[in-house]
């Protein structure tokens, strides 16, 4: 232990009392943090990486209990009283969270929220705090801080809100900044900007950063030290270089290999055309009211696509680019203008008219936690489509089909009597896929099916999707912002921005030789392995 170690964690254990008895979330973790250094804690969901930091911030849920020792500058901080802890927490050790949308109170202006830590810890008055707040906003790169200081959170974008959160954390010149997946909810280009900002601030202010993430790409580019966590234990730690070049633990190797691999060959040139959209427009009415003229948002502006049998079209773009809306419009799940044809005949509008086509055109959602009804058993969820499209089928027959569909996606047929909440994210996504596969569809729109999953699980889902495609000659319309997954699955790429196609072409061409600036920026932000450099 050298002199400049400012945080040392020894044998930290976190136990939760639950209805099923005590559950140990963190099992004896040891960590050291030197001042000015970046320590990344890497692990998949449920590995205890967040609970570790929650414990040292004294933010555990009421049923959680932490034991062991956490020393900040040789002072024990674990299980301090609330009052003692507050002298350190929010002042010397601060934290930023994953969700910039919910971490700010929507009822207060940005300036008031930023004034909170200053007034509390530094004892400043509202007026005294104002210049310091403006300075902070400038520091984190918010344009026009004099105006923004009086904005409400909803008037800012996700990236700007995360900047405000960072400004809040920096308000009292902390020694340690704990960042819990600070960029996961953001688009790749904004993610890169935020990380650059953090790297820059670290250099200028000399604080230590504890960075919690599941994204190894970020770790490689950002961290000095890496601790890999699995099931509550640190399985490997060392310098970033050592961990990435010579991983010792098999789990680390598995994580490093979890990048989806392989390529998709384009379908045969004579493959029949299944789904064709011509000049698809989608317009959403925005507000307007009883007497006011409604305003409209053009989400998709005249896009033409052509999906052939066995083909996978990858649609990439940042949030708000209209890629999900396009997918839904092609399935006639949202009102659209323009022609959408299935096997050469135009698809009808209207719920009842579309029903006969539905079993061939299916949809898988991003969030496997939200897309399964919590009050239905897995069997009921999977067989709902059969109930609709083959109403004459007997109960026993449906039951058999459910079992078959579950086995097809790699789950046990006996699980059909359980409820969705008993399954992990990856298992749930398999259930969602089974729900569509039971209808023997020909086209599946996959709306970010892997975004909410851990890397290693992502890889399994990608493999599953690929196997199913080969087996049933499926066509996928694959929507994602994760370029590495798209590269592994798609043979044709569409890059979207503000409802329009920016660039399109075969996967290799788009990835290797992007024509447009926007595409190039996207690729760079997502796939670069260069370390973040403080802006000079």
């Amino acid at each position, binding site marked *: 232990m050298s002199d400049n170690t400012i945080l040392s964690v020894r044998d930290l254990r976190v136990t939760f009392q639950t209805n099923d008895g005590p559950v140990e979330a963190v099992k004896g973790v040891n960590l050291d943090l030197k001042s000015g250094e970046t320590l990344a804690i890497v692990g998949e969901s449920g590995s205890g990486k967040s609970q570790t930091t929650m414990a040292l911030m004294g933010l555990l849920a009421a049923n959680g209990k932490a034991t062991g020792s956490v020393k900040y500058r040789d002072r024990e901080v674990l299980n301090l009283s609330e009052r003692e802890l507050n002298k350190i927490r929010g002042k010397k050790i601060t934290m930023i969270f994953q969700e910039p949308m919910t971490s700010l109170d929507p009822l207060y202006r940005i300036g008031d929220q930023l004034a909170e830590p200053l007034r509390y810890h530094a004892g400043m008055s509202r007026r005294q705090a104002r210049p310091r707040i403006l300075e902070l906003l400038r520091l984190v790169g918010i344009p026009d801080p004099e105006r923004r200081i009086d904005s409400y959170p909803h008037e800012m974008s996700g990236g700007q809100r995360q900047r405000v959160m960072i400004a809040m954390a920096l308000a009292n010149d902390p020694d340690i900044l704990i960042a819990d997946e600070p960029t996961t909810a953001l688009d790749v280009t904004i993610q890169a900007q935020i990380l650059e900002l953090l790297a820059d601030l670290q250099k200028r202010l000399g604080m230590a950063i504890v960075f919690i993430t599941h994204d190894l790409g970020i770790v490689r580019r950002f961290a000095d030290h890496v601790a890999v966590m699995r099931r509550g234990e640190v399985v490997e730690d060392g310098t970033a270089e050592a961990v990435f070049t010579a991983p010792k633990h098999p789990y680390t190797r598995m994580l490093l290999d979890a990048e989806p691999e392989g390529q998709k060959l384009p379908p045969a040139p004579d493959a029949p055309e299944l789904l064709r959209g011509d000049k698809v427009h989608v317009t959403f009415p925005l507000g307007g009211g009883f007497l006011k003229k409604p305003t409209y948002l053009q989400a998709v502006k005249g896009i033409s696509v052509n999906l052939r049998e066995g083909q996978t079209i990858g649609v990439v773009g940042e949030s708000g680019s209209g890629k999900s809306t396009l997918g839904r419009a092609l399935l006639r*799940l949202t009102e659209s203008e323009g022609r959408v044809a299935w096997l050469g005949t135009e698809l009808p509008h209207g719920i009842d008219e579309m*029903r006969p086509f539905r079993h061939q055109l299916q949809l898988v959602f991003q969030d496997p936690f939200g897309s399964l*009804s919590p*009050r239905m058993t897995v069997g009921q969820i999977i067989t709902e489509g059969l109930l609709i499209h083959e109403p004459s089928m007997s109960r026993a027959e449906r039951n058999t089909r459910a079992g078959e569909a579950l086995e097809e996606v790699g789950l046990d047929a006996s699980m059909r009597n359980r409820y969705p909440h*008993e399954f992990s994210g990856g298992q749930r996504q398999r259930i969602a896929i089974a729900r569509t596969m039971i*209808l023997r569809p020909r086209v599946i729109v996959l709306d970010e099916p892997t975004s909410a999953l851990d890397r290693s699980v992502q890889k399994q889902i990608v493999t599953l999707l690929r196997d199913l495609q080969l087996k049933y000659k499926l066509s996928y319309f694959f929507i994602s912002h994760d370029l590495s997954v798209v590269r592994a699955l798609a043979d044709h790429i569409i890059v979207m921005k503000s409802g329009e196609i920016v660039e399109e072409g075969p996967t290799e061409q788009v990835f290797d030789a992007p024509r447009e600036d926007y595409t190039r920026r996207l690729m760079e932000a997502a796939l670069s392995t260069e370390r973040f450099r403080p802006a000079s």
Partner: protein
Amino acid sequence: MTDATMTAAPSRSLWQDAWIRLKKNRAALASLVVLVVLGLAGAIGPMISPHPYGAIYQQYVRVPPSLEAYPRADEIEPAVTDLIRRARVDATETEVSGDTVTVQIASDQPIDERVVRYFQRSDQFFNPELELAGDGLSGTLTMGVERNYFFLGTDNLGRDMLSRILIGVRISLAIGLLASAMALVLGVTYGAISGYLGGRVDNVMMRIVDILYSLPFIFFVILLLVFFGRSLLIIFIAIGATEWLDMARIVRGQTLSLKRREFVQAAEALGATRAGILKRHIIPNALGPVIVFVTLLVPKAILAESLLSFLGLGVQDPMTSLGLLISEGAQNMRGASWQLIGPAAVLTVILFALNFLGDGLRDSLDPKER
């Protein structure tokens, strides 16, 4: 696939599952037992009670609750003396032995056989027999002492409180449950349809609710009673028809948030009909708050009924309800607190039990608690 190894659980429906979970919740289970016992007491209690709920015991007006039988031993002689005086004869000797009273009576004039009637009319004695001596100026009167138990006392007219509370429980529970059931069916259907269809339909349906809201409740009930005549059924309908409005709003709000959830969209992508989505997805998922609201609705309906009864629009004497009993008891609480304590305690127990049961039901209907 390492995480695919789970043991199979037997297939159970939502309700079977809920029942299993409910059984683990002691407070809810105890509440259920209490409610069932009270329900049974209300249903069959008045039939087996020795005192009809309308029977008036003139001699026992406002007697306090007691485990002893009335008349008490020391009250028998004064009662006999009182009756003897009224019969205008003289008692020479009164002897009380167990449940029989023997009185030697005498008079200046010949005693009429009809003096027995004074004793026949009394609630305290039964089977009076008069044996007159030869001259008709004296005789022996024997009669049984009528033992009456008033465990919860009597009211101002001398009616047994226990019987009245039992009939009150019957009426109040019936009104509470039936009116809530009506509000539940109407409100859930209306709210779910309105919320799910949305847009103009939602607007029109909710404005109708707003208009009904603005009608004064009492005015509405009077209107109904005038048109259809007074009956218990109309009271159910009147209360149910006003309580469903809240339910409709709650369910509509739930539906609005539920229909944006991905599992509803997934069902739409599967081609499910609107009715199917409402039945399989929206309503089951909205059940939690609905159940809690129903348990609040039952006491509300019970109280609404007592308001109507108080105004003379609800049930009428000699029929009664808990609300009516409490309002009568409240007027007499100074001299005869038992008239208030009895029905109030029963109502409190009912409300407590309903609340615990509602909480338990909400928890047990949530599969995450399994």
